[in-house]
């Protein structure tokens, strides 16, 4: 579904991506892990066409993102929903205006139908009667939920999550992880999540890829990445995840069954 082939990207002397190859399959939950500043956000921005690679290409459903004209790119973007790290809600619009933004701009739906859909999306993320609130009145966790509601409003085929749990307390992070699992399964979408939170990665990943020094250095199921790696950088990074999985194994429950 999504192919990143030999992607290179540099900002001045900072060579962020140095030959990234990654295949994301339809319907899977791919989690890309890596330390701060390793280029995870840069990679995800290439997938949705917010950045152009210096070399290499990204293909989504057979279309090379870099070759698309503006209108074609916009059509392709309608397949996506994206939850930003800080939610990126439009300050000047209400919660309802944010969630219904794409519906208003890209469909002929009557306002009453848009309102219905907004309500439905907000209920999916566990929020009620908040349509008239402004983003400034919401907590960090609420903003993320509204951001998720906005991302799913147009029934996307692919959802990108940019550090979905960063900046949240552990309880709220768990809530967001549950929501990601629930919504992606309910909508049967492909999801790509970037995070450095191994608890989150453990919860939501079908497969994990680790980005290190501009390249994908490990890829596989959570168990493969946690236990079968020889690369010391990978082993060190996934250590917490490994401990969690071992503890869960001892307790006799598997995280994927939840």
């Amino acid at each position, binding site marked *: 579904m999504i192919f990143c082939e030999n992607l290179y990207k540099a900002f001045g002397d900072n060579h962020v991506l140095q030959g990234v190859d990654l295949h994301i399959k339809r319907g899977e939950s791919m989690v890309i892990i890596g330390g701060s500043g390793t280029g995870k956000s840069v990679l995800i*921005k290439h997938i*949705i*066409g*917010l950045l152009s690679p210096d070399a290499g290409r990204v293909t989504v459903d057979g279309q090379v993102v870099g070759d698309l004209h*503006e209108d074609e790119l*916009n*059509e392709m*973007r*309608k397949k*996506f*929903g*994206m939850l*930003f*790290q*800080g939610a*990126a*809600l*439009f*300050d000047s619009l209400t919660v309802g205006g944010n969630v219904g*933004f*794409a519906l208003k*701009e*890209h469909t002929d739906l009557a306002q009453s139908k848009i309102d219905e859909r907004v309500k439905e999306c907000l209920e999916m993320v566990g929020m009620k009667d908040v349509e008239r609130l402004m983003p400034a009145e919401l907590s960090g966790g609420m903003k993320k939920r509204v951001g998720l509601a*906005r991302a799913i409003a147009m029934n996307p085929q692919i959802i*990108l999550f940019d550090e979905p749990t960063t900046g949240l307390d552990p309880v709220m992070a768990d809530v967001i992880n549950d929501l990601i699992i629930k919504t992606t399964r309910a909508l049967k979408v492909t999801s790509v999540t970037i995070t450095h939170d191994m608890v989150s990665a453990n919860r939501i990943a079908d497969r994990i890829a680790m980005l290190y020094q501009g390249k994908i250095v490990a890829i596989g199921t959570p168990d493969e990445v946690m236990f079968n790696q020889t690369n010391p950088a990978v082993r060190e990074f996934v250590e917490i995840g490994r401990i969690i999985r071992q503890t869960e194994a001892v307790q006799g429950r598997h995280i994927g069954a939840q």
Partner: protein
Amino acid sequence: MLKKIAVGTLEFVGRYTIDMVKAIGLMGEFVGDTMKWLSRKPLRMGAAVDQMVEVGANSFPVVFFTAMFTGMVLALQSHTGFKRFGAESMVGTVVGLSMTRELGPVLTALVVTGRAGSAMTAQLGTMRVTEQIDALYTLAANPIKYLVVPRVIAGTLMLPVLTVMADFVGILGGFVVAVMLLGANPVLYMEKTFEFMEYNDMFSGLLKSMVFGFIISVVGCYQGFYTEGGAEGVGTATTKSVVMGFMLIFLANYILTALLFSNGGGGAKF
């Protein structure tokens, strides 16, 4: 040692030139995109009206204050000078021509740059660093169309309106000082104000102000649109926006004045 200094200087000049050319190219691309979206329908007139309120109505008090006191001080100053050779009756003429041809458009533009141009940069800059502009792209909405075009429409249309108001208020300020403090005859003063005023004086002032409005909004949006570096970046971009806006207004003012007043208007050929 000398070689090192020479190489260092060349490197600095080279890097500065490359950055400068890049910035000009980026600005050209930005203006081109803005013009492209300005010509594409539908225009978001609701958003443009909101921006007109922001640029126009909300700038009214500060433009009023600036123009009023400029007209007043102009009357005082010119009266002091003209009295030396018995030409006090020309105070109204000087105030009228100065306000309509030069001070009305330029002062209004400077005030709006400081008030509304900087606000545009801060708004768009904040949207950039909080990824709201990226969010617009991901929602298949072009930020130039949604954010820049309404502001450019508002700036270009509202500056002439504010300028007419500034001209009127400035002339009124001069009138109040001349009549109430300096003992001028009110009828004669008004007569002299309009006796030498030509249609072209007002028209050229308004044309200038439209160009200034376009410059203010494009510069304000451009600096905001390409903001980098969080809250500090927003502050830097806002300062740059005001400085760049001022410089371009003074530059455009000279070019326009030379063009508009060169044929029979007494302006210089450049």
